[in-house]
């Protein structure tokens, strides 16, 4: 019983310009839906009504005065709660930041608002973006709006659910090992991870800095492109952001995909994949062939090492990044007799089970005597995985795979087995490690009416091509194949 909104970026722009509706009315409509459905879905943790209506009013004044509107004017957008919003509570899904009010806006958020977007609120997620089911949030799990007894995926589960349930036109998520694409697949909405460095991470609360990326969820590919166009580009506040100029994705998505070579790596269709899901994604690939793409079989021999590599690198980086939560500068403080005692008590009470597990693992793999065996080796295997992609992109223009091995699982199904949970990211961590862009697009449903996601990966900075393929697939009916 999904109920994504009928509003799109384009239809809102047209309606505002024709004065058929005001930005305030649109925001009011979305808050009414949120008030009705969020208590069940738990997609939002904090609503920013005051800020949203002030922004909507600015858009309405601009419309009344005949000023040129920004490309996202009046578009209601939700923001994952690991992305800083000035004066709007930002918890990272953690008790340790339960009352934290960031003193500045993330660049991605500032750019959306500058383009006229209305930020409705902050969405639930796995604590510090660590998880694949949204069950690691300190504020309770998100329910999948398509099947309420199932997880929405994670870690950006609240953002995916908000878009799928019509609680926002679009949403921002973050992807470190699949945290945009996997929930996008589970909730049946397009979800994009840009190239590493394409979208500024200034104001993104860090999990694993060599992997973290910000990207959009939307109900269609054109909206995805519109949000990407606004966010992409260099930011002097993020030294890892690319200096390369960003294209206007919106104007490029309709280009033909005829003649593009689509790589299909056999490792993504082997043991462990759900048979219905495999069948649909292969049908999706056949549809792309019908659109003039040429299918090329690929071997990517290091795929099976990706999860192990990812969980060494990501946890090692997290153990360093999360050292900052010590009760001194922000967030929770649990008093202790000494400074060290205060650190330890604060962290013990402030962090949830999965975060502690990963901090333990990350600390272990970096500790004396183990660094070479784990961390250094993982960095070398990461190079081999990235090389698999470099080789593949000599032969193909894009790679198409399933986004996940199974559809959304039941709430509670994997919570007692961390390793099984990690394997939910088996098809997404590879692109994360290689730094390349990817999108998950809906690709039909199982017999049980659970959404299936198809992943399209491209070379670094090939967002336009990835979006073109997604757009052609959408136009040809691939989403409901």
């Amino acid at each position, binding site marked *: 019983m999904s109920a994504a909104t009928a509003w799109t970026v384009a239809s809102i722009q047209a309606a505002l310009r024709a004065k058929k509706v005001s930005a305030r009315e649109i925001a009011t409509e979305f808050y009414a839906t949120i008030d009705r459905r969020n208590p069940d879905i738990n997609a939002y943790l904090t609503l920013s009504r005051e800020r949203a209506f002030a922004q909507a009013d600015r858009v309405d004044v601009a419309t009344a005065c005949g000023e040129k509107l920004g490309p996202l004017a009046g578009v209601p957008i939700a923001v994952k709660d690991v992305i800083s919003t000035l004066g709007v509570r930002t918890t990272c899904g953690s008790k340790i930041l339960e009352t934290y009010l960031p003193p500045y806006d993330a660049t991605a958020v500032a750019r959306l608002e500058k383009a006229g977007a209305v930020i409705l609120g902050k969405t639930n997620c796995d604590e510090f973006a660590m998880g694949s089911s949204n069950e690691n949030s300190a504020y309770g799990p998100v329910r999948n709006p398509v099947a309420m007894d199932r997880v929405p995926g994670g870690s950006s589960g609240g953002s995916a659910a908000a878009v799928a349930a019509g609680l926002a036109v679009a949403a921002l998520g973050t992807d470190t090992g699949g945290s945009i694409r996997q929930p996008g697949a589970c909730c049946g909405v397009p979800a994009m991870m840009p190239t590493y460095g394409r979208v500024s991470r200034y104001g993104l609360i860090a999990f694993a800095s060599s992997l973290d990326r910000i990207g959009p969820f939307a109900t269609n590919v054109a909206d995805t492109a519109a949000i990407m166009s606004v966010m992409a580009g260099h930011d002097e506040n993020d030294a890892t952001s690319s200096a390369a100029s960003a294209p206007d994705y919106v104007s490029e998505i309709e280009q033909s995909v005829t003649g593009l070579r689509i790589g299909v790596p056999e490792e993504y269709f082997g043991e462990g994949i759900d048979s219905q899901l495999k069948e649909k994604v292969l049908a999706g690939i056949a549809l792309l062939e019908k659109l003039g793409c040429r299918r090329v079989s690929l071997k990517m021999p290091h795929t099976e090492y990706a999860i192990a590599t990812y969980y060494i690198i990501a946890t090692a980086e997290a153990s360093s990044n999360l050292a900052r939560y010590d009760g001194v500068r922000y967030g929770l403080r649990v008093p202790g007799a000494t400074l060290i005692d205060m650190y330890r008590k604060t962290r013990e009470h402030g962090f949830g089970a999965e975060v502690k597990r990963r901090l333990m693992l990350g600390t272990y793999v970096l500790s004396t005597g183990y660094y070479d065996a784990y961390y250094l080796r993982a*960095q070398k*295997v990461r190079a081999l995985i990235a090389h698999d992609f470099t080789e593949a992109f000599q032969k193909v223009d894009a790679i198409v795979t399933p986004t996940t091995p199974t559809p959304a699982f039941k709430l509670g199904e994997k919570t007692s087995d961390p390793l099984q949970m990690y394997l939910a990211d088996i098809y997404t961590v590879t692109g994360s490690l290689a730094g390349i862009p990817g999108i998950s697009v809906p690709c039909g449903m199982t017999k049980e009416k659970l959404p299936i996601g198809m992943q399209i990966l491209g070379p670094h900075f090939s967002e336009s091509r990835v979006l073109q393929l997604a757009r052609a697939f959408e136009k040809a009916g691939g989403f409901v194949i």
Partner: protein
Amino acid sequence: MTISREDVLRVAELAHLELTPEEIELYRGQLDEILTYISKLQQLDVTNVEPMTQISFDTAEPAASSSPSPREPESDLREDSLRPCHIADAVLEQAPDAAKPFFRVPKVIER
């Protein structure tokens, strides 16, 4: 792979985590399982493989339609100059215990 209780305690101390007895036992078992899984990387021959430490791709292959120019390595580093920064009060407001302009913590120096 066998993780001992002592290993768990050592790592918890390094990570500044004060674990409960139940957590120590839980994490011992789970870390054991996870480390056994990730030890599959030992199967690979990584001789002569350079570790991937730089994750910047501006000089990688150009995009499909718009070709971004390769990064000039120095060009996007901003000038190292002083600029006004007036967020100290806003930052201190988020502190659990501030005595402007300082963060207050338990005494660390005995005298």
